[in-house]
């Protein structure tokens, strides 16, 4: 029987709290050969199983340029994520994947890159960002624009700081509502577009966040002259089987789990049920 539908065991090595309800786990397959062999594209996802709770899809938040371990960033929203939150270093989970198409990193070479993240939408971009930064010379300008509802809901605070300190990366952050001590920008993510030099002709924009955020960011980017195929996003549905069978993620003739979750806006525009 192939391992298409059967998870392999991985161990939680360590974990990092991102926000009150979001945590990043670093995982490694129990089987060393599998751990070293495991390869993926940023933007792909895993089906993660928690013993006794079930299976759910999570994007790979780490970069394939860093082999051996895998990271996922998980917000508590249901049965599987609640059960996962009760686990810690040394505990075991099941993993299947990688699933989906992922970002085409090779096609992005030579372009200026603009990453636009909202809230829990930064994790899929983080894998791509590290992939790009690990091969920094292959890409043009790198701009990271990120927003969350409040300062305490920003994920990867340490890395945002680290990226912002680099001379070859531009980072801008905003929050919808300030909290005491916040001195940065307040407003929805598109307010950041005026703070940087967007180059619609030479840039690829990677947009990831809640559906409503994706929708208004894309409209704004189009209005600023981005061609639809230069706007790339990841779509969300219930990706239960991860292999284009169970039909929960079907939109029109596409299975988001198999044909996506990454699509450019030209493709997204054509997609309807």
């Amino acid at each position, binding site marked *: 029987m192939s391992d298409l539908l059967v998870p392999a*065991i991985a161990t939680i090595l360590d974990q990092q709290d991102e926000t009150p309800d979001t945590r990043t786990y670093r995982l490694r397959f129990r089987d060393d050969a599998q751990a070293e062999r495991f390869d993926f594209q940023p933007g792909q996802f895993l089906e993660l199983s928690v013993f006794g709770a079930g*299976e759910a899809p999570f994007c790979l938040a780490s970069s394939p340029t860093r082999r051996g371990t895998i990271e996922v960033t998980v917000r508590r*929203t249901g049965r599987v994520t609640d059960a996962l939150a009760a686990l810690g270093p040394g505990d075991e989970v099941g993993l299947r994947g990688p699933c989906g198409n992922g970002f085409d990193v090779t096609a992005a070479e030579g372009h200026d890159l603009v990453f636009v993240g909202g809230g829990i939408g930064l994790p899929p971009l983080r894998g791509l960002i590290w992939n790009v930064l690990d091969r920094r010379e292959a890409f043009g300008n790198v701009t990271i624009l990120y927003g969350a509802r409040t300062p305490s809901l920003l994920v990867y605070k340490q890395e945002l700081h680290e990226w912002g300190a680099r001379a070859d990366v531009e980072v801008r952050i905003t929050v919808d509502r300030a909290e005491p001590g916040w001195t940065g920008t307040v407003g929805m993510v598109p307010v950041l577009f005026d703070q940087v030099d967007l180059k619609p002709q030479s840039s690829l924009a990677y947009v990831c966040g809640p559906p409503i955020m994706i929708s208004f960011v894309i409209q704004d980017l189009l209005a600023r002259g981005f061609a639809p195929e230069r706007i790339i996003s990841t779509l969300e549905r219930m990706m239960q089987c991860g292999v284009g069978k169970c*039909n929960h993620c079907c939109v029109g003739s596409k299975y988001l789990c198999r044909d996506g979750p990454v699509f450019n806006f030209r493709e997204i525009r054509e997609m309807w049920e």
Partner: protein
Amino acid sequence: MKILKLPKEQLDFFASVLQQFGEVHAPVRTRAGYSFRALERWSEACLDYDRTVLPPKKYFLPPRETMLTYRRPDGYVAGSEGLNQKLVLFGVHACDIFALNLLDKVFAEGVFPDPYYRTRRRNVAVIGIDCEPDEHCFCPSMRADFVERGFDLFFYDIGDHYLVMVGTALGDDMVLATGPLFTPVADADIVEYKRRSALKKTKYQLEVDLRDLPEIFELEYGSEIWEELGRTCLACGNCSTSCPTCYCYDVQDQVELGSTEGPRVRTADTCLYSQHAAVAGGENFRHSQASRIKFYYYHKQRGFVMEHGRPGCVGCGRCIVHCPVGIHVVDVINRLRGVRDAVASH
């Protein structure tokens, strides 16, 4: 293709020979309707049935199937009951075989073949039988009234004999295992086969036109029909459960009480249920029943066509028979086309 004939009075002998190829299942009359099930004796088989309640897909995508069991520290161990049991399905109609060929496109072919489905497909032999259309059949419209593959043998009634098409090497083995029972067809058999085939074509009462149907669906995306169907549909899922081409499934891990071990079970699901497009966190991409029944139709008549070149429908009529509120697929399609009078009599 090898084509032979078998005297009808030899059918029960042939059926007894079939047992060496697997447990023989055939349509049996039950209180709820016809049902494929294991035969205790050949006389239970009812070969002149109209349609079974559930299509034969139940043998390949069981309504409920354990995919694996999980337990620490072993992890997740694949295993499904009955996966390696040899079965012979006797008496499958052409439309239902056509539907299995369509399920093959999803589960046996492509990038990610489903190992459970493929194993079952290998272990279940299919013997087709010709049928008599009733007022709910529209398989010719869906070009599924005839199959040239997907069966090991196919039986056509030509009076005193069955004309038998041999579809696979396994079918040929079944023929050979009976000794000299099967004989070559004579000219008179060919005449009789063609006469019956032509006559059958005249008996269909329903018709839909497939030409440019995906485009019609695209044009009618905003049609008021969908809201109307949404108000009528009870979301019972009968159409989908009984559909030979519907294949949505749901996966749940069950837990033995007081432990973290148990089976992972997949069960038949349907896009008509309210939670089908719901995700964690409360978002539901298809909130209304109108959006769900619309998806049901668009996936069969547009999405499936885009991916596989033909509709995900074989015209078997089960969704018409089993809908408790009278939603009629042919009526829906013909109304979208605007030829309302053509179905007024149904």
